[in-house]
């Protein structure tokens, strides 16, 4: 009997598999197909202070082994999330959930986290300083170590729950930014958000995405994500949630050996709504295949010896 449990800053998960923010809504579309309580947790749709429509359409472009999205943090705003979405989420998911928080100012990050801090089901904050799809915010907070550190301090001041900072891969030195967040009190690091990318429509001879650029994700980015998890693991001693192109139980094990304590599954949910469930179900067999009894023992294992 293998042990798939992992612990993120005191929060114990039955397994390390977590659907990533923006690919899982608030859970109930997926609950139509399977009991989502088989998941370790999930990170709900990025939430901001005010309701946002997001970017113009088209927001989606297909790529080889991946996709580009330019949704732009569409969400109903934190007050509606608390009053309307979380009660519905509670009907279908009975474990602590990860609250993904977006923002356009230090005050906004703090305000949203303060409001969600009172929600019992929120087990952990994942603070998105890395959205490539919004101007004047998002990724701008995640490309400068000092600014990412200040977001961390402001959020830590309003909550006692664990705070994970979600970082952008669109930087020169992600390890330096992770270290700055750790020094500012972050409980963990979540990475990677999407890679900035674009496509051109050959018929129209214009960008496919209305906003020209968007965030590239899917299996094609897995090696980049894995490399960054490796680099951040070398730089910090706080837990890492690894993500980027994870599609299989084997990918989960690779991410953990590179340094992740838990692993998020993103784009895979959109092309196969039962992808996360299949990964959870595939984990014990994959562990046996590679002689792993206890997942916790392999975290960062590829760095040693």
């Amino acid at each position, binding site marked *: 009997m293998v042990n798939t449990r992992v612990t993120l800053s005191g929060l114990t998960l039955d397994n390390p598999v977590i659907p990533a923010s923006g690919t899982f*809504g608030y859970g109930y*579309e997926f609950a139509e*197909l399977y009991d989502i309580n088989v998941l370790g947790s999930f990170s709900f*749709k990025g939430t901001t202070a005010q309701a946002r429509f997001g970017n113009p359409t088209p927001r989606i472009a297909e790529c080889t082994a991946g996709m580009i999205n330019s*949704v732009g943090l569409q969400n109903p705003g934190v007050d509606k999330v608390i009053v309307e979405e979380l009660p519905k989420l509670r009907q279908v998911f009975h474990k602590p959930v990860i609250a993904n928080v977006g923002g356009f100012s230090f005050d906004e990050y703090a305000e949203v986290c303060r409001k969600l801090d009172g929600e019992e089901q929120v087990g952990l904050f994942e603070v998105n300083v890395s959205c490539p799809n919004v101007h004047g915010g998002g990724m701008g907070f995640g490309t400068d170590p000092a600014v990412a550190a200040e977001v961390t301090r402001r959020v830590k001041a309003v909550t006692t729950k664990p705070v994970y900072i979600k970082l952008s891969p669109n930087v020169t030195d992600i390890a330096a930014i992770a270290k700055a967040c750790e020094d500012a009190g972050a409980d963990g690091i979540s990475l990677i958000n999407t890679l900035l990318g674009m496509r051109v429509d050959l018929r129209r001879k214009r960008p496919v995405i209305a906003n020209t650029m968007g965030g590239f994700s899917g299996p094609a980015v897995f090696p980049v994500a894995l490399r960054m998890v490796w680099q951040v693991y070398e730089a910090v001693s706080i837990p890492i949630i690894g993500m980027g192109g994870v599609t299989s139980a084997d990918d989960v094990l690779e991410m953990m050996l590179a340094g992740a304590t838990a692993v998020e599954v993103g784009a895979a949910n*959109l*092309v*196969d*709504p039962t992808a996360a469930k299949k990964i959870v179900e595939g984990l014990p067999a994959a562990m046996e295949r590679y002689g792993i009894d206890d997942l916790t023992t392999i975290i960062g294992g590829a760095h040693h010896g």
Partner: protein
Amino acid sequence: MEQRILTITAQRRLTKDVWEMRLAGDAAGCDVPGRFVNIRLDGFYLRRPISVCDWRDGELTLVYKVVGGGTAAMAALPAGARLDVLTGLGNGYDTAPSGDRPLLIGGGVGVPPLYGLCKRLIAEGKTPRVILGFNTADEIFYEEEFRALGVEVTVTTVDGSYGVKGFVTDAPEIADGTYFYTCGPEPMLKAVYRATACSGQFSFEERMGCGFGACMGCSCKTVTGYKRICKDGPVLTKEEIVW
């Protein structure tokens, strides 16, 4: 939404670019006209959303246009091929407000979902009238299939090579409708919006990520708030649309 494995039983080329695919299996939730399925294809990352043309117990008919690599790969699939399909997606048309003589207005590859709708309306004892619009005579498909249902059909072609010359809005029936259902390219939908005095329902198309409401890739603004074309649509009422 359900996830099903369906087996292709036949493919038939209707025009240069338009194909009809028949699938066997349990197409759960496809019994509401105007819904769609989302098909996984080897070698393509995203699924391809295709409107449901017709359904019976254990059989599904899709009519689709080859517009790129994915749909070209679909057209090349042989009978016997098994497809991973998300079925019963979207809200579909509401037949309750149709009245006795609703107008069905389809343009090009927007025609297919109106076929299943037409059959449903007839089964409900109503007498739909149909306007089908195409660019040219050689692009016309499903005219005979609609006529075989015993309904009045007017075909329009932009170049006048068949039927009424012009757009669907040039068909004489457009003026005296009491309720309509429409599907087609957006410029056509806007023209129908302006040309009709009565109320009706529009089916929209948008680039989708997931097709089942999770990714917010296909959102639009409506009078009643933000809607996802894939989950809250693809059918919107005339009163909801912001044009």
